[in-house]
């Protein structure tokens, strides 16, 4: 055996050590994943939404992100809305927006034929914009099946590297949950990390003054509405409260009106004050209870307005 072969073989051993370490890390990530809110929620969808399949066109789905996660009080909503004929389910995936909601709805409700009668979507400042970032690895890990890949690649994820991340996210928990694992690790290792990193992200995500920002577009929003309407389900959009004033884009309002979608403007809810927010957008449990009562009331009014079908 010459020295070249020997050197190459040694490096293969080195790479084998790396591979073993990465596999161990993946095993650790899969174990950690079971403690993650989003993971528990998404993995629990088939079980939790089983009643949707047995009751034809009944039930209410609350679909959103951390604004809904923190802003909806399950007890209040269930007390107001939930009956045997009207199961209520909340799908609130952290950091998600219109692109992910579309795939969540299709993967977990349309495909297994568990379409609810009413879909209530909570949105904030830019969650309906096409420009909102789409984390490919999470899309792959949580929202989509392999059969969605062609549609994802043609409509949502164009960059080659992101497409690879989408596929990696499908296969590897350490990739799909990277942001969460990183945040969890650093939050434990460094006191105050969570608060400081949130503040930094808010500042760094603001477009710079010098940068010319193109007006937002809403193709994904239209796609989502069409997909809900296609299932003969009703859609209500909820503008969520915040400590600051934000505008609902005129195009969102026009599109919703044209397609018969109701927008509930709950940006300012009586009884909710800045003390009811954990930060500028996420409600405290007390704020969530007030908000949920108001939301449940308005949803009931909307339901009454169209009943009987």
């Amino acid at each position, binding site marked *: 055996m010459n020295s070249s072969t020997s050197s190459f073989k040694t490096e293969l051993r080195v790479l084998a050590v790396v591979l073993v*370490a990465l596999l161990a890390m993946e095993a650790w990530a899969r174990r950690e994943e079971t403690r993650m809110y989003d993971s528990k929620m998404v993995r629990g969808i088939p079980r939790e939404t089983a009643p949707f399949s047995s009751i034809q066109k009944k039930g209410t789905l609350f679909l959103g992100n951390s604004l809904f996660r923190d802003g909806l009080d399950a007890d209040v909503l269930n007390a107001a809305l939930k009956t045997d004929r009207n199961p209520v389910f909340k799908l609130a995936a952290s950091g998600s927006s219109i692109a992910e909601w579309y795939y969540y709805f299709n993967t977990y409700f349309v495909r297994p034929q568990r379409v609810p009668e009413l879909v209530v979507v909570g949105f904030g400042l830019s969650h309906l914009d096409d420009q909102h970032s789409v984390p490919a690895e999470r899309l792959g890990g949580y929202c989509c099946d392999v059969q969605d890949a062609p549609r994802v690649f043609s409509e949502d994820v164009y960059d080659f590297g992101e497409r690879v991340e989408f596929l990696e996210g499908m296969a590897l928990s350490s990739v799909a949950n990277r942001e969460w694992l990183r945040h969890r690790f650093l939050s434990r290792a460094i006191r105050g990390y969570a608060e400081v990193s949130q503040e930094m992200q808010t500042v760094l995500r603001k477009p710079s003054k010098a940068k010319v920002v193109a007006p937002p577009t809403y193709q994904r929003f239209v796609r989502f509405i069409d997909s809900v309407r296609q299932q003969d389900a009703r859609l209500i959009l909820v503008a969520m409260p915040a400590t600051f004033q934000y505008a609902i884009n005129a195009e969102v309002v026009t599109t919703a009106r044209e397609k018969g979608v109701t927008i509930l403007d709950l940006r300012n809810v009586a009884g909710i004050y800045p003390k009811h927010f954990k930060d500028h957008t996420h409600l405290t449990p007390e704020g969530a209870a007030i908000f949920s009562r108001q939301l449940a009331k308005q949803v009931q009014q909307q339901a009454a307005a169209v009943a009987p079908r």
Partner: protein
Amino acid sequence: MVFSSYVFWCFFAIVISLYYVLPHRWQNRMLLVASYIFYGWWDYRFVALMFATTLVDFYVAQRIDDSETQKTRKRWLLVSIVMNLGLLATLKYFNFFIENAQGLLHTMGFEISPWTLQVILPVGISFYTFEEMSYCIDVYRRELKASRNFVDFAVFIAFFPHLVAGPILRPSKLLSQFQHPRVWKTDYFAEGLYLVLTGLFKKIVIADNMAPIADYVFLADPNTLTGPECMVGIYAFAFQIYGDFSGYSSIAQGVAKWLGFDLMHNFMMPYFATSPSDFWRRWHISLSQWLRDYLYIPLGGNRGSGWRTYRNLILTMVLGGLWHGAAWTFVLWGLFHGVLLAAVRWFNEPEAGEAPVKESKKMPLLYRLGAMALMFHLVCFGWLLFRAETLTQAWIMTTQLFTNVELTPFAKVNFSQILFFVLPLMLVEFWIYLQDDMLALTRVNWMRRGAAYAYCAAMMLLFAPEIAHEFIYFQF
């Protein structure tokens, strides 16, 4: 197409698969095509510009070589220098000069509405124009014979591993490697793996995680920052630029090694430098050597009186600063380093011919560590000038450093983050520094090496930030 992207590694997999089934001449042709594809990936229009300058310098170098009289040789050399510097001046510095002239005239009471260029600066233009110039100068100095094979010359200029961010390789070192069949050395695979992996680690884990901290501080109103917050931003930028640039150079070196080419080390643990001259022998070595050989020495180097040497040092460093970009902050950064070099030289004339690394290693360890800490903070002050958007921002941040010492949660959290990401790298680099062998890690037991690489890979997988930043030096 950046080294830290999947598309690059797919591209490289195709290149290397074809490369090893082709004979030598076809290898060069294939590398030339691959390099132009790599460059055109940013903007296909840049390819035409690079091809045109390559063609001119190929022809000019032959004319220099073939000319009998010194006068004719000089004229042809002038053609190359005017073309290359003219191109840089137009694309990179034209607007800077115009805007400054406008400002100057405004203060004198004249109002003009000058015409400015609306062009995108071609990626890596400063790197390849310097290489082309050094080629023509070397031929002029009769240190090199002009290449008669266009493919060899064009691939030397466009060779994709070092094209957009260096190292700025000397024709005598690289061109000859294209002219002869590559000789595969047994350690190339292991060395390439080490260089690529550590390079990716420096870019993805160090640079990209330091970038948001530095961006946050340098985007903020400097009046609202405390001294420790400014310090955190400067430290973060120091490690961002180091991880970014040395990471790129390391990947370039590793990728080239897998193709059978030997590129120079562009960085040799610069933050362990004990003096300004030691720093410049460790930081962006290829640019430092270029400036020394084609600017400092022709200006007279240290051959004249003391003052002439100081002037040459400062002028070289100011122009080196300006090479990085058209802004006064870069000029000031160069001036700062020039003055630092001159001042240390004035205080402590180095012994002629003594190697710098050995020189610093003669010091007792404690003294050496003190010198390293001092030099690191001087370099960091330079980075403040380099990164600041304006001179006012640099001034206010400097003032805050010494007047407002409140340790905020932001400063504490980000100091900890810097330690978490950077400390393991610095410890390994200090061990390499003590070994006095840049590839020392490739010589340790495979199990230990595997553990080190596994750490790098795991960190890259778990701590790759949400937003990847482009390599900083592409804009130069």
